[in-house]
């Protein structure tokens, strides 16, 4: 079958072309005629809100799903990808959003998992694998770990680099990166991008999926936008503006949050004095005012989350004291902190936030069961109206309250997680990476919601690795590095550059 050479948007012939792909699942059309062109030596950003069909397309390109209609064309020839092996054989590899790795095994074993080098008698050729891995790491310029390092000793960022190396071991011509920067600090992102650019210059076609516009603009040459499973548009990134892209993704204008708050009062709600931890942080002192959003910014590993754990009573600080609402605050457990009105929404939504197998309603009422039910017997009617109140307040998108959280999209899961804490009537709410990995629309909604919270008299601590988010939401920003507070900045008077300088140690 000869391919119909559609007029490519200028320049060279694409390596990989997706033509009118349709993918149906029982009862739902996940992709409705999407198209995409990837060229050698080009980074193409795939944009779309959660549920736009990005992940489905990745799964089709990596042979996990087969398309219902349409074709994938590689080097001008139609391609059928029946399995992950097929995709690898054609040089298409993907680095997934949540890195799935074997933490007890070495870097080399992870890289060669599924295609072990074998020698005589089909036995595993260990030396060969170590040598190959060493070559791959050198090619990527990685020196801080070696082929025999166990994965569990690596940071999240380093794990991503292993994934990149793994892709290279398959002689990748097309590399798909699904949210590679979501859990990385700015410095790590920069390091990753050096490697991505190196691969691009070697001629690899890269499909880059991200929610972070800074990253998209920093790395991509072109873009494609999907919405609700359909193709919306594409073009060159240098000709596009952020607002236009957001409009294309959302189909409406999303207001980027701007801080126009006047709710901050002089009253101190939480006072932390010289809080020290055995290993993670030292000499932390700050005060949180009523109606204030206090941002905590720092690179991954700067001790932000560990500090929040201590404030929430998950770990015990070594020394120092906290005063909450005028009295000494020494939470022995999360239970303690919650009953006194301080709650913590953890970073890892899937592992620490939602109980995926339970319904939306049960998740929302769980922390507040005592106050809803009073006595021994649960009160389903009260529970249901309670859950409905918070689910609708946060505009959770779901089939019904009885739907299991596991079936929701990431953004909606996060709404449920935040919703469940509101029900406890907190005075201080600590949000750890509240918008990590969720789409623009859901993100704006969460931001707007955080603003509403402080206007209603709550105080919020927000821990985020996303600079625009911290800067846009916070009244003041605490910058941490290596377990120490480096600066407390007024959000209106500081800049991204200044914050980064403190966080990285340039200042």
């Amino acid at each position, binding site marked *: 079958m000869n391919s119909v050479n559609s007029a490519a948007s200028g320049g060279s012939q694409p390596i990989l072309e997706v033509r009118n792909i349709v993918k149906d699942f029982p*009862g739902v059309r996940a992709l409705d005629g999407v198209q995409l062109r990837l060229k050698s030596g080009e980074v193409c950003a795939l944009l779309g809100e959660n549920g736009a069909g990005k992940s489905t397309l990745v799964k089709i390109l990596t042979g996990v799903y087969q398309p219902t209609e349409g074709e994938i064309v590689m080097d001008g020839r139609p391609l059928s990808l029946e399995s992950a092996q097929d995709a690898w054989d054609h040089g298409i590899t993907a680095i997934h959003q949540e890195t799935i790795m074997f933490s007890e095994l070495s870097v080399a074993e992870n890289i060669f998992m599924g295609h072990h080098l074998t020698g005589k008698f089909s036995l595993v050729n260990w030396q060969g694998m170590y040598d190959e891995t060493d070559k791959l790491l050198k090619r990527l310029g990685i020196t801080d770990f070696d082929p025999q390092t166990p994965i569990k000793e690596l940071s999240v960022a380093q794990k991503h680099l292993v994934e990149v190396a793994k892709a290279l071991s398959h002689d990748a011509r097309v590399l798909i990166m699904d949210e590679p920067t979501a859990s990385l600090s700015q410095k790590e992102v920069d390091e990753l991008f050096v490697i991505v650019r190196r691969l691009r210059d070697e001629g690899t076609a890269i499909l880059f999926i991200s929610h972070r516009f800074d990253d998209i603009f920093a790395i991509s040459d072109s873009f494609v936008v999907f919405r609700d499973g359909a193709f919306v548009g594409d073009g060159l990134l240098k000709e596009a503006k952020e607002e236009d892209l957001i409009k294309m993704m959302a189909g409406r204008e999303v207001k980027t949050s701007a801080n126009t708050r006047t709710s901050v009062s002089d009253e101190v709600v939480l006072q932390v004095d010289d809080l020290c931890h055995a290993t993670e942080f030292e000499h932390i002192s700050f005060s949180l005012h009523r109606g204030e959003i206090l941002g905590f910014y720092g690179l991954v590993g700067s001790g932000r989350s560990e500090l929040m754990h201590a404030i929430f009573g998950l770990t015990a600080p070594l020394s120092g004291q906290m005063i909450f609402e005028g009295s000494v605050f020494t939470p022995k457990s999360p239970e303690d902190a919650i009953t006194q009105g301080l709650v913590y929404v953890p970073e890892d939504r899937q592992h620490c*936030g939602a*109980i*995926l197998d*339970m319904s939306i309603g*049960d998740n929302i009422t*769980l922390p507040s069961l005592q106050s809803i039910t009073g006595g021994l*017997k649960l009160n389903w009617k009260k529970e249901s*109206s309670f859950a409905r109140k918070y689910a609708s307040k946060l505009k959770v998108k*779901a089939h019904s309250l009885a739907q299991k959280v596991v079936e929701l999209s990431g953004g909606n899961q996060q709404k449920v997680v935040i919703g469940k804490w509101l029900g406890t009537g907190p005075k201080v709410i600590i949000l750890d990476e509240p918008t990590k990995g969720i789409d623009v629309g859901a993100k704006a909604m969460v931001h707007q919601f955080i603003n509403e919270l402080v206007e209603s008299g709550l105080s919020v601590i927000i821990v985020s690795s996303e600079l625009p988010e911290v800067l846009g939401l916070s009244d003041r920003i605490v910058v941490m590095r290596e377990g120490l507070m480096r600066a407390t900045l007024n959000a209106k008077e500081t800049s991204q550059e200044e914050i980064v300088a403190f966080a990285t140690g340039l200042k």
Partner: protein
Amino acid sequence: MVLPKNLLKSREGQLVLITIVFYVAVGIASPSFLSFESMDSIITDTAILMIMACAQMMVILTRGIDLTVAANIALSGMVSALIAMHLPGTPLILVMSAAVLTGLVLGMFNAVLIALLGIPSIVVSLGAMAIYRGMVFVLSGGQWVNSQEMPASFTSFPLARVFGISNLAVIGLIICVLAVLMMRYTRFGRELYAIGGNPDATSYVGINIKKRLFAVYTITGLLGGLCGYLWVARYAIAYTEIALNFELLTVASCVIGGVGIAGGTGTVLGAVLGALFLGVLQNALPVMGISPFWQMAVSGTAILVAVIVNSRGKRQKGLQILRVSQ
């Protein structure tokens, strides 16, 4: 016809249907199986399994497994038998209390290791199971306590009848109902589902997991103690090997009843119906002239079928924004 349709979508509904169809099919071949006496004896025979399936359900729901339930039955049963033999004048209620108390202590021993020290339940219960069985041997000196050595009041209780139903069946049904109510309508039950679904998230919510698990293993031990007396009195014999491999039947009941072995999903009703299904099977095979040894293979097949069905998830589609109802 909306109701039956929804019923059949649930594991509980499917089990009821399968059990009834199987029961009637066997009954057509041998009509005596359909008699009230036969039904009565199935319930009476299965009561202990139903009780322990409820307990095991709580344990499995919270991502654990308790392999000591059968050894607990043997040990607390032996304790009650020895008291009844050596002190025949002891009131029955005290004898029963002794069994329950023994079970409670054994359960708390498991609970300390599993819930407080955080040692995996399979390891703890595997070790404790051997210890408890060994203690039965030590207590009895390897001797049997048989029906002649037990006072009549001791052995007659389980099969004595209230309104024509055996005490054993009555106790079994009461405990099943209590278990259903507890898991469905109390905060404790809801919290156990949360722990099984995601222990990390549950601890962030401020629920003390250690306390809840401690209660789960202690309650299981307590019910084991009660069943210890019931078992020994019902069969009028106590020796080291009673209820051998019975713990596996309790696990099987849960799995057949749709309790997810990974924790967080399933219902007490499912576990009880799973036990009932196994009970019907056990009673039907002799009627059909099939060797009891086949029973293992048949119930094994039932477990595998149940696991295969469990693994096929269902997803709902079509999302909408939830609104406050007017």
